Structure formats: C-alpha cells, structure tokens
C-alpha cells in the first residue's frame, strides 16, 4: 500500500513526461491526485502495515502531514489544469518589465508536480533519519523546475537562490544526522540505529551533548527549508515568482514536510529529556520568524510576497507552539492544518487576482468585489482567517498556543507573540482588505466575467474546511491530534 502511494504519482509523472498529448497529461495529473487522495483517506480507516522493518511506516504525525499534502495536491492539481489551459500561448508578455518569455514545457511541469508529490509522500512515510534527509533533498530538487516555470530572469534568480540556500541548509542537516549517529553510537554498549522509533525508545542512552549538537544542526538545516527566519530568505522570492498554484503547494505542503523532519528530531530530544533545550531553540527561532515577517508584511507592496512572509510568520507560530510543549503542541498541530489550508487557498485566489489584474502590486488592485466577487469573498475570508479572526480555525489554534504560553508563565514569549500577531494583522488589514473595496480602474471589468469553475472551487472548499474547523472539531480528529502531542510528551 505505502509503496503504491509513492509510485502512483511517480509513474504518472514519468508517463506524463513521455506522453505527447496535453489532455492525456491533464488526465494523468487528475487521476494521480484523486487516487493518491483516496488511498490517503483509506489509511484513516485501514492503517497500513509498516514496510522494510519499519523503514517506511505511517505514524500519526506522518499521517497528518500526508493527509494535508494529499488534500492540497488534489485541489492544486485541478486548479493547475485550469491554470495551464490559461497559459497555453507560447510567447508571453511580462507585465512588470517589457520582456517576452516562454514557459517551461507543460510535460516537464506536470511531471515535476507529480514527482514533488511522490517525494513529499516518501518523506511523510519514511521513518529513518537518513531517508528523511534524502526525501527532503528530493522535494527541493523536484520543486526547483516548478519555480522556474516562467522563463524570465526574476524566476531564474528565485530558482537559483532557492536551490543554493536550501542545498546548503540541507547539507547542514546531513551533518546533524551524522551527529545523531554519533550520539546513537557513543551512548550505550551497542549502537542504536537511526530509526525514529528506536531512537525514541533508547533515547535515555543517547549521548546528550551530541544529541544537542544534532538538534541544532538539524533545526538550522531543515529550518532553512521550513522557512524559519533568518534562514527564510529564499522563501519570498520563490513564492512570489513561482506560479500561484506552485506557491500554494510549496507554502501549504512542502514547508510542513520540512517541519516533519524537525518534529521527529524534537521527538527524540523530548524522549531524552532535552525538551526545554529544544523548546527554547524553537521558540527563539519562532519569535525571530514572526518579527521578520512583521517587518516585511507592514508596507508590503506585493501581495504574493505578503502571503509568503505570512508563511514565515505562521511557521514561526508553529515552531513556538511546538517549543512551548504540553497544551501548546495541540495548538501547533491544529495550526499546521489551518495554515496549510488557508495559505493554499489564498495563493490560489492570488492566482485568480493575478490572472485578472495582471499585476502583483497591491496598490493597483482595487474593487475586487465588483470584478471577481467570488474570488474577492474568498480572499477576504482567507485574510481574516490568516490573521486569526474567529470563526476561523486559526483563531482557535493561535488562542490555544497563547493560552498555553501564559499558563506556563512564559509572559515575555506570550507578550511578544501577541504583539507581533497584532502588528501582522495591521499590515494585512491596511493592505489586503483595501484590495477588495473601492471601484476598479476601467478596462478590467471586461476581463472579469470569464472565471473558470476549477479556479474557484478548490479554494472555496479549503476556506469552508477552515470555517468548519473553527466551529467544530470532530472528536476523532481531536484525539488524533492529542496522540500526536503524546509523541512529544504533550498532553
């Protein structure tokens, strides 16, 4: 089963690479996404058996990440079909500078999307730290060509930075893995293998100092991929230059995958009684991320970059939640889900806005309610949700984290967290809400009317899910999240 989960998208990718026929490719993309989703859903009811003596297995956290990824990919996949149909023409006029550029061939694009899905699945399933590393590197490599979809110098620059920075970061993470190996080997009489389960089980015999080193290196390494400041620098560039559907995938799914790597290491640390040590690090980086995000979100001139920075902020929130431990972990996990759904939806809507207004500058976008009412509504809902307004789920998760922080007496952390949240909100409110109001310039209205069905349904569903999560959390899901908290000694 698990292998099937990995190989479906992989094979589909290969096929779409070789196939000559566009509609066939779309078909492949759609079917792969659907199959993958169905399989993933089935795992909720029939837990699959682990493979290769536990090298591949599906534990709670993996299942969470996997489900998010699969769900988002389903939405993004269908959105991508409508998007690609829009982007058919060979030569495209760039709207920022007067340059003509072409797109990466569709085959490569779809193939890479599917490969990305495969590698993310692989990551979610892999239980061995070596494999995790490999998988994360794979996600980087498969997503790089996607960012370079529009062949012009800005996306090229973004791609280059993405590649370089992430590779360096991941290399550092490799060193962290080696340290982990050292810690595992120098502790007890016989070396412990790098399987997550084993490490957790024998955590008490691990060598503490090396474990600490390992966590720091892995945190910085995977943190780069996850977008924690100040290693986040690739993120806004990549998200703003990639096609919106890709940005939504990167922001909604890939960041979580990097987070998974950190989470597993954190798991080992808590098991070894280093919870506070690791927690402090996570909180520190989390706060820095929120600060940096706040710096760039106020007065941000480009709404896609805005969303990207907000991803940095929310990754910071997730890190803080994990670092605070106990009740906060629940909030953190919930926030992971909420952020993925909201941010993905927002990026997809941003794609619609871009398609109609032909600009990424917030000042040039006005009167969305008159031009693209549905997208405008979704956009507004998304903005409210991403800034933590009830009745959206994000409010609950952020509130939970804040509550835990205050109840643990971490007043400075909680205070900074709250203040930064408010500042970010101010940034969003002053910039993004204005886009929906007012009346548009002439000439835009005509473009408006034809808005593809597929381009609004996925984000709409995601927003709806967030709304549901804000009003009602199924008890099974709640217990599920509680089990995840148990993994890191939460409650």
């Amino acid at each position, binding site marked *: 089963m698990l292998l099937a989960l990995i190989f479906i998208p992989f094979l589909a990718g290969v096929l779409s690479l070789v196939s000559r026929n566009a509609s066939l490719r779309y078909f492949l993309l759609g079917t792969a996404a659907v199959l993958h989703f169905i399989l993933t859903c089935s795992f909720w009811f029939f837990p699959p058996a682990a493979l290769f003596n536990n090298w591949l297995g599906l534990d709670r956290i993996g299942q969470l990440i996997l489900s998010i990824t699969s769900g988002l990919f389903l939405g993004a996949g269908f959105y991508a079909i409508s998007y690609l149909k829009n982007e058919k023409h060979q030569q495209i006029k760039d709207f920022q500078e007067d340059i003509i550029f072409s797109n990466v061939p569709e085959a490569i694009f779809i193939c890479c999307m599917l490969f990305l899905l495969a590698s993310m699945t692989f990551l979610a399933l892999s239980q061995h730290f070596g494999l995790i590393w490999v998988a994360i590197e794979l996600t980087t490599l498969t997503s790089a060509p996607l960012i370079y979809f529009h062949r012009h110098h800005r996306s090229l620059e973004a791609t*280059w*930075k993405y590649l*370089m*920075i992430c590779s*360096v970061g991941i290399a*550092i993470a490799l060193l962290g893995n080696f340290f982990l190996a050292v810690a595992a080997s120098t502790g007890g009489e016989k070396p412990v293998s790098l399987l997550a389960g084993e490490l957790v089980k024998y955590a008490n015999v691990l060598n503490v*100092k090396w474990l*600490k*080193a390992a966590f*720091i*290196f892995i*945190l*910085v390494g995977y943190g*780069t991929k996850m977008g924690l400041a*100040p*290693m986040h*620098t*690739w993120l*806004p560039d990549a998200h703003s230059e990639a096609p919106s559907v890709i940005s939504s995938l990167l922001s909604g799914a890939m960041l979580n995958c990097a987070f998974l790597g950190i989470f597993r290491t954190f798991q080992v640390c808590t098991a070894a009684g280093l919870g506070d*040590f690791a927690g*402090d690090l996570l909180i520190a980086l989390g706060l820095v991320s929120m*600060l*940096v995000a*706040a*710096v*760039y979100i106020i*007065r941000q001139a480009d709404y896609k970059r805005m969303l990207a920075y907000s991803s940095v902020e929310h990754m910071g929130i997730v890190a803080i939640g994990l670092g605070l431990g106990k009740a906060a972990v*629940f*909030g953190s996990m919930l926030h992971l889900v909420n952020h993925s759904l909201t941010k993905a939806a927002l990026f997809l809507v941003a794609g619609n806005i871009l398609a109609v207004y032909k600009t990424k500058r917030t000042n040039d976008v006005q009167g969305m309610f008159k031009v693209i009412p549905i997208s405008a509504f979704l956009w507004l809902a998304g903005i*409210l949700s991403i800034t933590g307004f*009830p*009745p959206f789920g994000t*409010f*609950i998760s952020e*509130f*939970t984290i*804040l*509550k835990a922080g*205050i*109840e643990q007496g971490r007043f400075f952390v*909680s205070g900074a967290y*709250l203040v930064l*949240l*408010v*500042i970010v*909100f*101010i940034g969003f*409110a*002053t910039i993004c*809400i*204005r886009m929906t*109001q*007012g009346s548009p310039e002439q000439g835009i209205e005509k473009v408006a009317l034809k808005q593809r069905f597929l381009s609004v349904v996925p984000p709409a569903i995601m927003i709806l899910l967030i709304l549901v999560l*804000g*009003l*009602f*959390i*199924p*008890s099974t899901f*709640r217990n599920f999240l509680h089990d995840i908290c148990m993994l890191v000694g939460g409650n």
Partner: protein
Amino acid sequence: MFYYSIKIFLVGVFLIFFGGILSLLFWRKQKLSILVGTLGAVSGSILGLIPAIKVLLSGGKESLYIAWSIPFGAFFVEIDAISAFFLLCIFILSIITAIYGSRYLLEYKNKSLAKAIFFFNVLISSMAMVVVSANGMLFLICWEIMSIASFFLVTFEDEHKHVRQAGIVYLIATHIGTAFLLVMFILLGRESNSLDFDKFAAIKLLPSSMASIIFILSLVGFGTKAGLVPFHIWLPEAHPAAPSHVSALMSGVMIKTGIYGIIRVLTFLPNPPLWWGWLLIIVGAVSGVIGVLFALAQHDIKRLLAYHSVENIGIITMGLGLGVVGINSGSQILAILGFGGAILHILNHALFKGLLFLGAGSVVSAAGTREIDELGGLGKNMFVTSVTFLIGAVAICGIPPLNGFISEFLIYTGSFKGLITKQLDLAAVSIIIIGSLALIGGLALACFTKVYGIVFLGEPRSKHAMNVQESSMIMLVPMIILAALCVFIGLFSSITINWLKQCISQIAGIGPDVVSSQILPLSNILIKVSFAAFCLFAAIAILLFIRKKMLSAEKVSIAPTWDCGYAKPDARMQYTASSFAQPLVDTFKMILRTRKITEPIKDLFPVEGQFESSTPEVSRDYLFNPIFRVIYLLLGRLRWLQGGNIQLYILYIALTLIALIIWKLR
C-alpha cells in the same frame, strides 16, 4: 419545558440570522431581499424579547449548556438579569432600526443592498449572543463576529476613500482591543482552569494584583469597543461612515456591549479596591468632557453625534465607578444609585441616541449633506423629524421632564449622598462626578441648541436645504416610537426604576429584597419628580390658553425678522454652527487644538475673505499616530535584511548556526 424560554431566545436569534441568509439569497430581487431580512430581524427580536423581559422582571437565570468540541469551548448561554437588560436594549433598538433601515437603504441607488441587510442581521444576532454567552470561547467568537459584521456595515459605501479609511481604523482598533480581552480571559481561565463564566464567578480569594491586572485589561479591551478616551478614536470615524440606521444601532447598543463586558468582569471580581472606582470615575469624567467638547467643535452632524456617544459612555462609566466605590465602602445606597443610574442611562442613551441618529439620517437623506452649516430651516418642511429630534436633543442634555434627566438625577443623588458622608475619599470622587457632570450638562446644552437651531430653525443656508421634503412614514414611525419611549421613561421613572431592580441587585451583589427596600424612597422621590413634570405641562397648557385669550382681541401680524436696519438681510448673514460654537471652542482651545485657516477681508471694498476651521482627533494625532510611527520606523530599520544578495543570505545561515551553538553548547 425547563429550558423553554431560552430556547425561544435561540430560535429568535436563529430567525434573525436566517433572515439575513435569505436576503443574501434573494439578492437579485431587491425589494424581496429587504423584506425577508427585515421580517427576520423584527420577528426574531420580538421572540427574543420574551425571555429577556421575563428574566428582567422576575429575576432568576435561564441557561443552556451544550458541550462543544473546540478546546476550552462550550456552547454555554445564560440569560440572567444583566443579560436580560442588555437584550432588552438590543432588541428594542434592533426592531426600530431594522424597520427604519428597510426604507432608508433604498436611498442608495444602484448598490446591492443584500450585503448590508445580511450583515445587519448578523450584527444583531451576534450582539444578542455576546450578551448571553457564558463561555469565554463562545464570547470571543461572537464578539469578533460582531466586530466583523459592523466593519462591513461601516464600509458599506466603500467607494469613498474616507469610508475605507474609517473601516480600517475601526477594524484595527477593535482587534487591538480584542487582543487585551484574549489575555484577560486566559488569565481568568488560568485562575479557574475553565473558560465558563460560572467558574470565573466561583473564583474566590484571587490575588489582588492579578485581579487588578484582569480589571485593567478588561477596561482597555472593552473600553476600546465602548469608546472610552483615549481608545475612542475609531468612533468618530466609523459612525459617520456607516448608514444612519447602522450608526444608530452601533452607537445605541453595540458600544454598550463594551460596558456590558466591564460590568460582567466586575461581577467576577468580588470586593474591588477603591482605586478601581477612582479609575472608572476619572476615565469616565475625562471621556465625558472630552467627548462633549469635541462634539461642540464638529461641523458634521453624524460625527458630532458620535462624539456625544463618547460623552454618554463617560457618564455611564462614572455611574459604574460610583457603584464600585459604593460596594467598596459598604454603602449599599451608593452602589444602587451608581449602578442604577449607569444602567438606566444605558437604556436612555440607547433610546435618544438612536432617535438622534435616525433623525440625522432622515435629514441627510432629505438634504443630501451632513454639513450642519449648509442646512437651516428644515423644521418647516420636516415637522415630525424636527419635533422628534428636538425631543431627543432635550433628552440627551439631561433636561427634565425627559428620560436623560432621570438617570443623571440618580447619579447626582448618589454622589451627593457620598458627599454628605463627609468621608474624604467618597467626597472627593463625588466632587469629581458633580463638577464634570455639571460641565458636561452645560456644554451638551450648548452643543444641541447649536445643532437644533442651525439645522432646523432659521432660513436655509444653502440650496441643499432649500426645498426638502419629509421622509416617508416607514422612517418616521420608528422615530416617533423612540421619542414616545423617551417621554414615557421621563414621566414614569419610578415604574422604570422598579423594573431594573433585579439587574441592579445582581450587579451590586446585593439581595433583591434589600435593593427594593432601598429603592422604595427613591421611587417616591421619582414620583414627586413626575408630579413636577405634570405641573409643568399643566402650567404650559394654562399659559397657552391665557395667551390665546389675550391675542383673541388683538391683531397678529407677520413681518420679516428685525435686522437692526440692514438693507438686504440674507440667509448667509445668519449665525452658523461654527460661529455659534466659536466662543466655547476658543475657551477650550488648548484641549481642542482647532485648526483655522483665515483669510481676513481687507480695505474698503474687500475682495472675498474666507474662514475654515477643523478639529481633528487629538488623541489620534498626538498619541496613537506617534506610537505607530515609531513602530513602523523601528521595523523599517530592519528592511535591509532581505537585501537580495545570496552570499549574504548564506552568511545568515552560518551565523545563525554559530550563534545557536554558542548560546546552547557552551
């Protein structure tokens, strides 16, 4: 059967909400969508009134607890006397404004009204839910929904820049307020490890420092919504921007939810220290005086009314402070008078401020401008509007025999009672209350004589005011009802005060029977007041009769106004609002900081001169803007981080690594 009446309430709330949904569905057929929305609002409100009135009169609690799956959350709603009182205000004004709005909205040509109706209904239902929700999570969610709904109503005419600006200011202000509330609820929950209100109330022996922190947080958080100085900056922006019936609802009851929050928190925190009372009274006094002063300096009628909301919130807060002082000093009558005056004033303000905003609305829709100086002489063509507005104006100045006087009368009596105890601290707070109330009264009178005199009397000052005609009956009837209610409470105050017994006793934490025994002499006094009022009416009637007799023989002639010998009297020569207010504005210029642009006329045959004055919000210009400017500056300092240079980026990674190692691995 036991939960019967709260179920009714919930059904009502649902009806209101459902009406909103329907009106959204029927957005194509404008008339229909307005109809269903209004019907939903009215019928739902009437249903909701039933349990509210029952609880308010008979006391007791109606509660319903349903477990809820979101963390710390529970669907826990409870109507006690306090909630019931606020529900009364909310639903009455909702019915009135909904009916009014159903006609008023038609003024907006070619604009989709369904959105306005929908959010209006959402606003009503969320307000109702806010005052009954007995669980922190539920409260916060309803609270924020209320904010969002009102935000969309404020930005209804979002094609104007200033409206968008107002909306943003409002949203940010209310969100910052909510941030304080989050912390407050979490702290309360920390003490009682639950977010249910009954658990909060069960907290005893709270460390006094913690209690004070919670109180301060609630004062800031709820004060922002209520519009206490200096957190009131959003208010004078938002109210003019919104459609008038929405302003009436917002100013009449929505900002009162902030007061509700403060009261609710006070019931959680037993035996408050004296300085809380001091704080409340000082904040209230400042809000009252500042509010009325700025109101005096405004030229925009709705903005002026908005500032008067600040003033009245100040009066209410002073009443609360007096009550707190009473509780602290163990003098029950003081507590009863303070809290009683406060809540009665809440009701009264809901009535006459609603009335005034509706009146302003009908003026605006008739004349098409909010500039007071452009109007004049509207009283002749708009008789009903002018009379109802006059009643509202007299009431808000606290002049007998109308309701505004009664609530101020209670607060005055309370403070005098505090004064004659000759205890220094009681006397001191009483002096503050008396002095500021007196000043507020005088200034409010100046302000409303200005508004009424300039808008409705004299000659039209511009073509806007030339040939206006009276609004339709659907808009007039609600105003008449409100005016009637004002008169009723003014004349039968002793009855009204007895209705509020339960509520007062619950706020003050005094047994109902004690309260009624304390209220008895008070209501006797109020009966005397009503008697005096009737004497007044009798005297008026008699004098009218006498004058009729006198004039029956003599001739009554009509002539132009005596203009002291000017050749060509002209409407432009009339006193304007700004010239009327100018002496007082100058007297308080060091607070108001009015900006004037003057171009005096020169030499014998002068070319035209000009004079402009504007009074911007001081606390925004001198308090908040600087703060935000500093924050933006500091954050802006960091913008070089994302310099675009990849080598630098990778250096960050290396440095972070080193820093973390040095931090944690030494």
